[in-house]
Structure formats: C-alpha cells, structure tokens
C-alpha cells in the first residue's frame, strides 16, 4: 500500500495546478456571471492533451490513466467547477463508452477527434420523465434497414450546445423494458438532430446545458454502440466512470472553498484579532479539512481501482456520495465563515456554494449512490 503520488502524477499535478491558476481561475467569475461556455479554455486544454487523458496513444489519447484524469478534474474544479464538468462529461460520458464499447471502426473514427479536443462530447440519457428512473426511456429508435430513426428528447445535457458528438440512449424494443434500450453514437450534423435553448442554472453556469431533440433523426447502422438491447448496461457502466469524474469535481470545489476560507480567516479581523485566531473558526476548519482528505482518499481509491480493472462501482458511488456531500458542507460553511462578504459575488465562495449543489444531483443523486452502495452490501 502506498498513499504517495508517483513522480509522473506529481509532475502532472504541478502542470495542471499551474494551468488552472493561470488560465482557468481568471475566467471563473466571468463564465459564471455571463453563463458563457469557456471555449478558449477548452482549446488551450486540447493543445495540452487534456481532452484525452485516459485514452491510449493509438486512439489519439495522451496514454494516461483515470488517476491523472481525476487529478485534472479536481484541480480545474478547485478554481472553476464549470471547466471541471466540461472535461468530466466529455471524457467520462462520451469518450469512455466509445473507447470501452465501440468497434475498432468507431474508435478509429471518433476517439482521435474527441481526444484531440477537435470535437467535444456529451451524453444523453435523462428525459423529462426518465431521471433517476432511467429505465423509463421514451425516446425510440426504429430499425429502418441501413439506419435507425430516433425520435424523442433528452434534457439537462451537459456540453449540449458545444458538443459535436453525443452518446444517446433510446428504446429499440419497448416490450423488453431495460433490455430494449440501445446506445447510439450521434453526430451533431445528423438529419433531424437539434439542440434546445441553454438552461438557466443555479451553478456551473458556464457549462452549456440544453435539451437534445431527435425529430426523426437518421443514425447510420454502424453508429449503434454495443449490441442492440445492451444500452442500459452501457449507460450504467458509463455512469460508474462518470461518478469518478463528478466525485473529483466535488472534491475540487470543496478544496477550493477551503483554500479561499483559510486565506480569508487569516486576513479578516474582528474583536481585534484575525478570525482564524478564534477556536470556533479553527474547529470548523479542522473538520472541513479532515472531510476533504477523507473524500480525496475515496476518490483516488475509486480511480485507482478503475485503472487496475477491479470492480469499482461501489467505490465510485461512495466517492461521489461523500465528496458531493463534503463539497456542499464545506461551501456552506465557507460562506458562513466569510460572513456578509461571503454572500456577495466579490468572493468566490458564493459561486462555489451554488456550484457544489449539482454534485449531489447529477450522474446519480446522492440517494441513487446510497442505493448502489446498499445493493453491493445486500447482494
């Protein structure tokens, strides 16, 4: 057992932290305020190979692993949760299922474009009536000889407006329930595909979230991802990986809020002393730091298990559950320790508190994570 980062991971951490501080942090307040997708940051990330961290070099990736990817999402989210989730959805929810379940031809066609950042990826599972109950898919895919015809809509899709490629789930056989769900690789330019208007959100406001509309959308047969009827399993396995990404995002938000708070309590004076001098402040900071360190161990151990190809579904669920709830607690307390200033947009903890909430909701709510964890205990 070894709790230290390797030399390679340390070198990577140094790079991504410097990149986050110099290139991402200066834009964080603006992309939130203007609800603006930071396309220029994504371009810079693409040039460094950050859009394809865990994919093999032969697929156009950087040849890294999930630990490096987790560190990247954490460090980006420490300064800007929007940028963190752009990378997470792109990598875990679009690149990863194509890498894992795609044919050699699908991998060769799509992964180099995704990994180089030429294309941005997204994932469409959630529907107006299929949220936590993802099996209640109403989007249909009808076999029309050499292609499928997809009809329906997906909502709350991260990266929707910026993406060029989508992994989308639809019913190919309604009579079979979850075994009638199939996965498809859909290009933005396919006939009948369009995106709706950008959602107005509480947090991660620079992340481009929209509806996907399939109006008799024509998808070539060769774009079926995996076997027909295996879509639900693909979606669940993809979300296991996605949870490592979102857990890393939550961890980053929590760390960012604590960093800001430590800085603030050293400067802010009340009753003649820096507020960090008071035991109430100290005890709160100690509890938050302890929870963040615990969250980091859970997150890194889930990524580590995935890299070792060990079962990691429960580990990812625990990492996401704990990191998300830690992010929420840390950011709420960070605002409290900042007092009135923390409630204003002059200080980043206000944004971080709004950003943290989504980590308890998307890619499986905290309740879903508890279901996953309990099902592993009781199976």
């Amino acid at each position, binding site marked *: 057992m070894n709790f230290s980062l390797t030399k390679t991971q340390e070198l*990577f951490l140094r*790079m991504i932290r410097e990149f986050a501080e110099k290139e991402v942090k200066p834009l964080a307040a603006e992309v939130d305020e203007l609800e603006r997708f930071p396309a220029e940051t994504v371009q810079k990330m693409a040039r460094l190979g950050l859009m394809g961290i865990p994919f093999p070099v032969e697929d156009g990736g950087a*040849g890294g692993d999930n630990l490096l990817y987790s560190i990247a999402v954490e460090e980006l989210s420490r300064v800007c949760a929007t940028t963190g989730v752009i990378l997470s959805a792109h990598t875990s929810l679009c690149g990863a299922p194509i890498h894992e379940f795609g044919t050699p031809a699908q991998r060769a066609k799509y992964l180099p474009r995704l990994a180089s950042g030429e294309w941005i990826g997204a994932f469409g599972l959630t529907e107006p009536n299929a949220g936590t109950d993802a099996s209640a898919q109403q989007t249909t895919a009808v076999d029309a000889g050499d292609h499928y015809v997809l009809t329906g809509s997906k909502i709350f899709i991260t990266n929707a407006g910026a993406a060029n490629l989508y992994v989308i789930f639809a019913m190919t056989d309604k009579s079979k329930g979850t075994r009638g769900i199939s996965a498809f690789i859909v290009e933005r330019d396919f006939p009948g595909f369009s995106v709706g208007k950008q959602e107005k959100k509480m947090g991660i406001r620079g992340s481009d979230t929209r509806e996907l509309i399939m109006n008799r959308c024509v998808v070539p047969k060769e774009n079926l991802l995996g076997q027909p009827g295996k879509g639900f399993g693909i979606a669940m396995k993809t979300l296991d990986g996605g949870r490592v990404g979102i857990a890393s995002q939550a961890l980053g938000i929590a760390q960012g809020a604590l960093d800001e708070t430590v800085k603030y309590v050293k400067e802010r004076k009340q009753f003649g002393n820096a507020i960090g001098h008071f035991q109430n402040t100290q005890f709160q900071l100690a509890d938050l730091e302890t929870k963040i360190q615990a969250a980091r161990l859970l997150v890194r151990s889930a990524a580590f298990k995935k890299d070792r190809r060990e079962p990691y579904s429960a580990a990812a669920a625990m990492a996401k559950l704990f990191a998300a709830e830690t992010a929420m607690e840390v950011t709420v307390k960070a605002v409290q320790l900042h007092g009135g200033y923390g409630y204003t947009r002059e200080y980043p903890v206000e944004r971080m508190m709004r950003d943290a909430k989504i980590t308890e909701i998307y890619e499986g709510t905290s309740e879903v994570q508890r279901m996953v964890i309990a099902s592993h205990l009781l199976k």
Partner: protein
Amino acid sequence: MNIVVCIKQVPDTTEIKLDPVTGTLLRDGVPSIMNPDDKGGLEIALGLKERHGGHVTVLTMGPPQAEEILREALAMGADRAILLSDRKFAGADTLATSNTLAGALRALSFEVVITGRQAIDGDTAQVGPQVAEHLDLPQVTYVEAVSLDTPAALTVCRAVEEGHQTVEVTLPCLLTVLSGAVKPRYMSVRGIVEAYAKEIERWNFDNVTVDERRVGLAGSPTRVYKSFTRGVKNTGTLHEVTPEEAVEIIVTKLQEKFII
C-alpha cells in the same frame, strides 16, 4: 537544427522566507524549479524546432536530484536530456561551471547553444557568456525572440536599456535568453506520461573534454569574502487618498526628482 539548452535547478526564490532573527535564508521545504530564464530559453529552442525542424538537447550540471528539471524539459518537448554529475564538479563557481558545460558541449554537435540570462539563485549572468568564450562562439545576450531567416544565420531581437535591438548572428552561436518576453509552454499530458520512461544520460568527468584543474572547487578562483543580508530598502509611503489627490502627489514627487 541541433540546439542545446543549458538549464539549472534553482530554489524557488519567490517561496524563500528570511529568518526574522538571523536574517539568513530559510531553504527548508522550498521547492526546486527550473530557472525561469532557462525555461524561456527552452521555449525559444522548442519554438525553433517546431518551425524549422531539429533536435533539442537539455543539459544540466548538478546533483542527482537535478534530474527533475530534465524530466520537466522532456515533458515540455525536449528530445534528449543529459545530467552532468560528478564529485569533481562540486563547489564550482561560474568559471568552473562554464568550463564544465563547455567541456560537455565539445562532445555534442549543435548549431545553437541557449542559456538563460541568469539564475535566480546567483544572479551573476556570467555562465552563458563564459561558455561562448570557451567555445569561441559568437554570442547574443538578453534575447527575447529569434527567427531563422537564412540557413546560416539567426535574426535575434534583444532587450537593451533603451528598447529593443535586432541583430543577425551566424551559426553556430550562443544566445542568453530573458524569460520576461517568452511564455514557456506547459508540459503536455503525453509528455508527462512518457517523461519518466525516457532515458536521462548521466555524464561524469570522463565524458567531458576539459582539464581537471578547471572544474569544481579547484577550478574556481572566486573566494567568498563575506556574506551578509542586504539592509531593508525603504518600503515607500502609502497614501490612502482619492484619485485626484493621488495625481497631485505623484506629480509633485516626480517634479521633486526632476523626472518631469
């Protein structure tokens, strides 16, 4: 084009604190980094390679842990890394260091040698120019930008006190680079992943073409007479005033000093 970039591992002086009692440097726990001017030099070299093709070698003299900056240079895109490490090299001043580097460069083929202007720990700005003298190379100092317009010469923009000067220098040559005008690239993810799988060539005294009396402590004529902490400079005065009042104060001060 073959380019050799000489780099140095230095303590990150922005992180160094002074002991409030003794006034000495507190070096414990201070991270080591690639000297910023050297990193600027590496960026110039990698830019030339991108535009004109070629091969970039990084060379450092230092203890075994100096390997870290060579890995970083490889992750940024350098092709080859050489660590000059030998007890005989220890205790070197700038002259002995430049003799050792020149000895190593004699064993390498190159059209351009690049060094940083100066290192943030010593601030002498002597090593680059000395290397050029040992190897009888034309040198251009304080370089900010380089282009290769003809096959046999570089067009170089250098910073001078009054502004900028553009000169042409024939190859082979040595440049000392200023970091200020150059934004070094980040290490790439793939570069990082592969950096520790690449070989670092470890050279000792036997690999270097130089007289033993000219390296290390024996080859260092510099004698430290006394070390002391510089007195604290006047920190200036702080005026918390309106912009209009601030203009008034600034103009008065500038007039007092006959600047305007």
